[in-house]
């Protein structure tokens, strides 16, 4: 998809994030299929527990395995917003994946970071500062031609991966997005809210279509949502439940659902004119919410500064 960064305000920024997320979902689905076709053993968004640490883990977007050895790590960046952001992302990838001690096997994988072609302008400005262990690869995801093209800029990765990335392209169907709606990376809240709102409609039947409020079990809602998570993160309850609950709480603030006191039953209303571009509506509401929080923070700061000033004046007197 040819993406032109938009900077017309917070709502556009949120919608751009939603677009990027949609593209990423498609990318992950298509790229995983490509890895399977190439018969590469590939773990997607897998939790690699770091040896000797109970808490620490790493989850690269794509890890190419040879037995227990991780030989390649491929990180996908949907968006690079500035040269500084580019450098942060590349340095972070190097820090995270340079050495992976997993299951007692110490791996030193090659690291490749994929970045969107349209953000090359930012990458070019920091190219000489990119850690030497990191290979870069620009990609262009264009639905007009149903193709993702790659331009590999280093040669660190294994031959099999190089074959896929080096000046090559993957044909894909944009409808690949319809397989799943999520990846591990957290989507913007308005995106999840819209997905959940769509799932809630699925509870309608000919008997309930006229009811004002329809009770839905939270457990059942999560069960239905589960099918829209790809198999590689489907069993990750933490990812699912956090995402679901934050979006439901947001839907509650926008008066689309009511969550019962025990958080197990969602009652949602089927009345009113809730047609339109709801994701854009949620983005607007979300932006307003963020602005309110920011304004409240500013007011708080102003108050505390005023108090400090008073205190200093008192001291002076």
């Amino acid at each position, binding site marked *: 998809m040819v993406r032109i960064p938009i900077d017309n305000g917070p709502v556009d920024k949120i919608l751009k994030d939603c677009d990027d997320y949609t593209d990423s979902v498609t990318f992950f689905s298509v790229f995983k299929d490509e890895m399977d076709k190439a018969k590469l053993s590939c773990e997607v968004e897998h939790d690699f527990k770091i040896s000797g640490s109970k808490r620490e883990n790493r989850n690269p977007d794509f890890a190419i395995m040879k037995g227990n050895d991780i030989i390649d790590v491929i990180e996908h960046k949907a968006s690079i917003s500035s040269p500084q952001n580019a450098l942060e992302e590349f340095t972070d990838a190097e820090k995270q994946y340079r050495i992976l001690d997993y299951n007692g096997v110490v791996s030193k994988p090659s690291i490749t970071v994929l970045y969107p072609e349209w953000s090359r302008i930012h990458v070019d400005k920091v190219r000489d500062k990119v850690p030497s262990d990191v290979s870069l690869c620009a990609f262009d995801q264009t*639905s007009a031609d149903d193709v993702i093209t790659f331009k590999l800029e280093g040669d660190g990765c294994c031959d099999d991966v190089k074959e896929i990335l080096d000046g090559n392209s993957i044909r894909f169907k944009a409808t690949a997005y319809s397989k799943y709606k999520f990846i591990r990376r957290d989507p913007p809240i308005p995106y999840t809210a819209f997905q959940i709102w*769509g799932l809630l409609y699925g509870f309608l039947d000919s008997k309930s279509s006229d009811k004002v409020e329809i009770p839905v079990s939270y457990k059942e809602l999560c069960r239905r949502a589960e099918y829209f998570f790809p198999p590689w993160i489907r069993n990750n309850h933490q990812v699912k439940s956090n995402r679901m609950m934050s979006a439901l709480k947001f839907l509650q603030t926008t008066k689309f659902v009511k969550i019962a006191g025990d958080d197990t039953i969602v009652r949602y209303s089927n009345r009113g004119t809730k047609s339109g571009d709801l994701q854009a509506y949620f983005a607007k509401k979300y932006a307003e919410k963020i602005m309110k929080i920011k304004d409240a923070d500013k007011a708080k700061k102003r108050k505390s500064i005023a108090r400090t000033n008073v205190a200093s004046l008192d001291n002076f007197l």
Partner: protein
Amino acid sequence: MPSGLNFADKSQLFDYYGRAIERSELPSLHCFIFSSDAESPIERAIERARDKGLITSLLSKNDQIYQVRIGIRTSSQIGFFVPVDKHWMFISEGESSRISQIMASFSRRMFPILNLVYVPSLPLLEMVERVKTKYDSVEVVEGTFCKTGETFRNWKKTPLEFNLKTMMGLARREEAKWTGVTLKFKADGDVVFGCRFSENGHLTLYSGNFLEFYSDAVLPYIYSSEQIRQKLDGRERKETDDSVILSPISIDFKAPISETEAHTIEKKIIDGYAAAVLHPGNPMLMIQLSDRDDGSSFDLYVFKKKVEIVPQQKSTPDSLGNLVSLVSDILPTGTALW
């Protein structure tokens, strides 16, 4: 129509209308075919109409014949609902455009309890081609074309013999689709019946024998609509342990879809569905949408020469049919692959 009419059964009702048409007491008789999966749909529709503030009411009920007044805003229409082969037929007399507007509006408000069936242009013509074999000839009197941005009627000054190839050729030449066609079915030099078929569940009898019309127009039409429903059925996204099965419907076009056309689709969907525009077109329009009435959900993609509809968690044949019909009314020259 007088509201005091009472019929003991369907055959009495058909006799009454048959005689009225034969004696030319009625200029035309309208039949609207509804599908429904609900229990007691007529009672439920009347109940819903009351909730929605419509002036629809049940005037009488005998056996399974419901005499109903259907009122939308300031217009109302009296007619009879009768069950026909797992469907419901609303039969009434009156001025064509007025009654079809009332019924289309009623159907939209009653969905999913009752929904006007849909027989797309090509299957509609194919159905006539099949019925034609029972008659000496079928004459095309008039037809309605739907072209991008306009709908127009095409009156035949000299009679045109119905032929599927000719009809499709005419549509191609106009870069349009037939949305309705008025025909005369002839045998032994006489007109057995003259009627009109539309894509959207509406049949009109203008002259001739009601029972022949019923068996050679209404029943084949219902059969065709049922075949379309079967093609649209069971298309929801299916999930196994490690794979997802999608059953999309693809509508292909020979000429590229313009930005204006894609924008019209986007606007129509945003007006009627709970939607999210995930990509706003150029090069691809991608909309995720939920049917607010029956809970079906779809992803719709508009590419350069193709529209693809991918059913999601839930997909009923009626809701999917309505969406296909919406697209086909904006882009009438497509070929649906299902």
